[in-house]
């Protein structure tokens, strides 16, 4: 792993009003030359995509934390969410911010690198070093753009399995993920039931709901309505539809929160002023916050990649791939599951997790489930929610015991 500490952290003040920015230079570089580990797959190892295309060559950018033990039994794969990446527990090379899941991964955390060999890869179709629409197409020497084939969640998992093979690991101790990462975690057990010992699926579902598809379509239309999107060919002109992408992010961000969380955080408070300006300026703190979320997002994310990844989530439907019977997908599975949902999550509500749990029960899988009480919405899985860490630790520790893994203290 290359040293990434030389990068200057950007301001993390969330209440600034910031004009939308161009995608940063750092990010443009990360797309093809990530400052993380990279696995290259040549023409002899194509990625067989659901859309029928064999993608080759391609690369997967990934990070690892901790050491693989002698019998290779302590590997944990973390699957990232829609706009996440492989930088789980290190400073981000573009934004300079801490890793996105340092609440769960790190010394003394439920996933301690002293105990586990933790792997996280950027998904195929992403824009932080794994091949995606922002990467160079070796056949044309140009950026892929919309020539990139449509990818699915099973495609992401197939690419991860090739990475795991490449690392010489047969069975993963655990696959862990939230939201789109949870979808991948579930798909892992469906596609490779023998290769996953334990599965921690958080704030996710076995299919994307109509409401969620609708929100994604809203985001995609915002990107496509930006003249700079130009049918996805913006890279050739050196531009980026940052306004459309920022709007998409703002809309999506609302779905990650809850009414109660927004009210608690911002209420109707004004931003740096006492009285309304009688204009369309960001008078309210909540507006300022959303604008910041939108503008900071576009400097680290590619607009086309956003289209592809949201599409992958829309297509996800495990039951649909098994004649409509969800339980059939999990029949005979030996994997231990722990499913976690959050009370105020309306993007992936508890009812979706319960449907998963019922299907797992119906197929005799070993499953535990807990709904965590919080008003922080879907985002809760990324935040410091002790009740969530308690159950995550309890599950991973007991599964580790069953797997014969040593604890951090060596016992």
């Amino acid at each position, binding site marked *: 792993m290359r040293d990434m500490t030389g990068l200057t952290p950007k301001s993390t003040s969330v209440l600034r009003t910031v004009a939308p920015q161009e995608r940063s230079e750092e990010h443009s570089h990360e797309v093809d030359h990530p400052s993380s580990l990279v696995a290259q797959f040549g023409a002899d190892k194509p990625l067989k995509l659901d859309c029928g295309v064999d993608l080759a060559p391609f690369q997967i950018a990934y990070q690892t934390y901790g050491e693989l033990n002698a019998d290779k039994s302590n590997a944990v794969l973390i699957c990232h969410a829609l706009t996440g990446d492989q930088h789980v527990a290190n400073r981000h090379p573009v934004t300079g911010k801490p890793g996105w899941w340092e609440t769960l991964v790190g010394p003394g955390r439920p996933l301690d690198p002293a105990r586990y060999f933790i792997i996280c890869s950027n998904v195929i179709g992403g824009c932080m070093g794994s091949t995606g629409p922002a990467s160079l197409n070796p056949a044309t020497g140009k950026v892929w753009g919309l020539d990139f084939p449509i990818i699915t969640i099973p495609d992401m998992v197939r690419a991860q399995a090739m990475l795991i093979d490449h690392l010489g690991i047969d069975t993963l101790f655990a696959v862990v993920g939230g939201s789109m990462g949870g979808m991948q975690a579930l798909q892992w057990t469906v596609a490779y039931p023998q290769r996953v010992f334990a599965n921690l699926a958080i704030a996710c579902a076995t299919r994307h709901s109509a409401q969620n598809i609708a929100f994604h379509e809203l985001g995609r239309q915002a990107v496509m309505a930006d003249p700079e999107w130009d049918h996805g060919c913006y890279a050739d002109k050196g531009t980026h539809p940052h306004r459309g992408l920022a709007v998409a992010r703002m809309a999506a961000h609302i779905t990650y929160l809850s009414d109660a969380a927004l009210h608690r955080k911002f209420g109707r408070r004004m931003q740096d002023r006492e009285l309304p300006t009688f204009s369309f300026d960001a008078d309210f703190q909540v507006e300022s916050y959303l604008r910041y979320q939108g503008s900071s997002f576009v400097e680290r994310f590619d607009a086309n990649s956003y289209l592809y990844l949201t599409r992958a989530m829309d297509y996800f439907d495990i039951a649909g791939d098994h004649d409509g019977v969800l339980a059939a997908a999990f029949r005979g599975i030996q994997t*231990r599951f*722990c499913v976690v949902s959050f009370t105020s999550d309306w993007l992936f509500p508890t009812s979706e997790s*319960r449907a998963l*749990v*019922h299907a797992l*029960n*119906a197929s*005799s899988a*070993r*499953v*535990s*489930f*807990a*709904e*965590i*009480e919080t008003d922080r919405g879907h985002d809760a899985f990324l935040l410091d929610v002790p*009740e969530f860490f*308690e*159950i995550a630790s*309890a*599950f991973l*520790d*007991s*599964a580790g*015991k*069953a797997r014969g893994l040593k604890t951090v203290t060596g016992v």
Partner: protein
Amino acid sequence: MSLQGVLPLNGLSGGEVLAYRPDHLLIAGMVDRGSKVLDIGCGDGDLLQLLESRGIDGRGIELSREGVNHCVAKGLAVVQGDADTDLVDYPDDAFDYVILSQTLQATRRPKDVLENLLRIGRRAIVTFPNFGFWRLRLQLLVGGHMPRTDNLPFTWYDTPNIHFCTIKDFVQLCDEIGVKMERAVALDSDGRPLRVAMPWWFWNMFGEQGVFLLSRGERR
């Protein structure tokens, strides 16, 4: 009569026997090895752990997240859920035994729950506090108050127990819905089984809790 004497629990030492609640040992003795069990209202998972130690494949449902956490930490497969609302989602014949221990009286629709138990499982084991227990009768008769005991410590206004019954009532319900009673045991205040040969009225008076092993009857 010694406890081990009435329990077909081979392979447990005297010390191990003392580590478990007597009613749990009694239930464990009713479950065949190698079978698949759902424990509804499994609490901290003590019974499930006893069952798993005996080669039984156990699953649990528990209402409280703290309970679920304790169970998950023990490596048990436990789902946060509610007996009143969640049992309908379980498929027919999913388990060999479904256990409802000290929970029936806290459900909103005990009859529906009981019917669901024997739909999901081939057999059901139900334990409940006997409201016909002489001490409870005496408290109501002499004191004029809703009874409270060590096992039922709640006041009438904050009790989760909304559907109390006596052993006699429960037997009547089993008859009504065509459930076959394979075994019935009444436990005294210390959780020890009363003598087997006693008549129902005696059990209904001196049993503090009833333990029933049920199976599907002819009428189903």
